[in-house]
């Protein structure tokens, strides 16, 4: 039983990181109807930014840790807006496939750009938050796991507030519902899209720092696998749906952790992705997604 609860805590902290990434995929899909494959590399840039900033703040303090987190989020938000402005906006009227290929190009550019400047060798990520271990009966929770869960909850809550309680959020929802009609009522499409990228990328940056805190070895390709899993989580939950992305991420994190701790640990990715296929068979739009008929 205690092993089960321990695995549940592990699953929660893993799922929380996937959720931060999955939200970015699903938000961009909501407004632009395409998968931003460079998102996982923004996550990687977040981790690298964090490791640079960490050299200039006192390590192992709550304040220093938050400074690292916010710096990574700010840099990633700017990066996200830049990517949208330079790579995706010129292709706004092009077929989706062209944008998709461009996204893959941006992804490779970021990966090898960082490899060129930072080197290909994995480097260690400093412990920026204070590290302690809590013993709850037979359960062991590390402060890093708590930080991950707390930050993820706070950010998802903040996101929910922005989208449902602010004018910009309302504009985002309007664009996601019908871009042309949104423009007709006076919504500036470019502002909304840029804002969406900034928001999604900031979450990815936070995810990058949190991931690096838990698995303190970072390299230019660290985003690939978590990115793929978060993408799957977004689809699983129903792409375009924010609660769906969070739910999908938690399910994927849980499936991966429990299979990983069993005798079938080698198959953990196969089972996690197999789950996706099964859910897609029964619910093609994802768990919380609405199935909409494509209007011609």
């Amino acid at each position: 039983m205690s092993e089960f609860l321990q695995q549940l805590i592990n699953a929660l902290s893993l799922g929380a990181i996937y959720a931060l990434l999955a939200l970015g995929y699903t938000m961009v899909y909501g407004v632009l109807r395409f998968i931003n494959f460079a998102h996982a590399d923004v996550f990687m840039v977040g981790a690298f930014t964090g490791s640079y900033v960490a050299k200039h703040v006192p390590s192992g303090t709550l304040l220093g840790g938050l400074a690292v987190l916010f710096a990574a989020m700010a840099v990633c938000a700017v990066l996200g807006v830049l990517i949208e402005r330079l790579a995706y906006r010129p292709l706004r009227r092009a077929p989706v496939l062209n944008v998709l290929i461009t996204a893959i190009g941006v992804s490779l550019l970021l990966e090898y750009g960082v490899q060129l400047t930072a080197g290909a060798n994995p480097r260690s990520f400093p412990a920026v938050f204070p590290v302690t271990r809590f013993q709850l009966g037979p359960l062991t929770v590390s402060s890093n796991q708590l930080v991950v869960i707390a930050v993820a909850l706070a950010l998802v809550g903040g996101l929910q507030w922005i989208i449902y309680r602010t004018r910009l959020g309302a504009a985002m929802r309007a664009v996601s519902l019908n871009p042309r009609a949104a423009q007709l009522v006076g919504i500036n499409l470019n502002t909304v899209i840029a804002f969406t990228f900034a928001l999604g990328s900031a979450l990815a940056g936070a995810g990058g720092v949190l991931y690096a805190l838990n698995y303190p070895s970072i390299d230019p390709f660290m985003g690939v696998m978590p990115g793929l899993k978060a993408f799957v989580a977004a689809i699983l939950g129903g792409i375009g749906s924010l609660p769906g992305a969070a739910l999908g991420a938690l399910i994927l994190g849980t499936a991966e952790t429990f299979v990983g701790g069993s005798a079938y640990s080698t198959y953990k990715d196969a089972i996690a992705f197999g789950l996706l296929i099964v859910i897609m068979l029964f619910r093609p739009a994802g768990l919380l997604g609405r199935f909409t008929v494509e209007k011609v």
Partner: protein
Amino acid sequence: MNALIRLILASSVLGLFSACNRQESPAAGTIKIGNYGAITGKDGTFGDSSTKATRLAFEEINAAGGILGKQIELVVEDTQSKPGEASTVVKKLITRDNVVALIGEMTSSRSLEGAGVAQAFKIPMISPSGTNPAVTATGDQIFRACFIDPFQGAVLATFARDQLKAHRAAILTSISSAYSTGLADVFRVQFPKAGGTIVSDQKFAEGDKDFKAQLTAIKAANPDVIFLPCYYTEAALVAKQARELGITAPLIGGDGWEAPELVQIGGAAIDGCYYSAHYSAESPDPKVQAFVKKYQARFGGRTPDGMAALGYDAANMLADAIRRAGSAEPAKIRDALAATKGFEGVTGRIDMDADRNASKPAAILTIKGGKFTYVQNVSP
């Protein structure tokens, strides 16, 4: 799968080979030797240390007048720690650079890739540190300068049982690495033979960073020692996560642990853990001390690790073979390599056995206060 790819590659390469006769090296005054390894990427320090030491060895030989009156020309290629890259660069070294012998790779999986190509072209190859038995089993052209995993696994199993007094051992294997599975297979047999029990047997895949699920299962089995046959990046991450979960049992591993990054990433978590290595820079042997001094003078004061020592020995073993062969023809170099006996390297006295494996001693090291510390030597 890998074997199939290698077969297709080898057969297509052989076709090319018979079509156009390979020319003798155009620069008659030099002997060309290929050196390939992971200089960048996940296992980057292996290749970096090893190729540096190989270069140092040949620089010394060239300064002393070369071999058979000829200078050695070393061509170095990077495999970037990527699967598939080794066979590409080996093919390039053989067909484009016309090397007469190869030194590489540092890991078993990529040595296996390169070995397939080298064997097809009949170019002798020395893997400095590929410890999986399958590497030299590829064919009669493939040699190694290190001990093999069955020996290393047996040494670690006995050490865990006799010195650490462990009764219950857990194993955490990287399932996609030939090195890791090979060591785990030996430990799984040897530890119970020495009187212990394996209480948990967990696996992960290369590139994983989250081991908490497997470690939680291991913790529930309550082992005295955890056997972790993998490379340094994973070893450091596992150690960190194990301590976070409150596991206090020592971790033990093989030569794949040896890199400064183990301590940089692992920090205090890796303290008090043990691994088997090819040599220790602290050894009082004058040969070792001379090598350490030369390496430090040449490469900015960095202390050579086991990979460097093996890269150095592989280079000198090859030079010794060319000298004894009296010719730089691949076939003659191969025969001379196979006849190596009593070669005095910095990693100990090396004899080539019938299976082209080096028979030599192993050292046990521990990590104390972020430093690698010599514990004891174990002879075959």
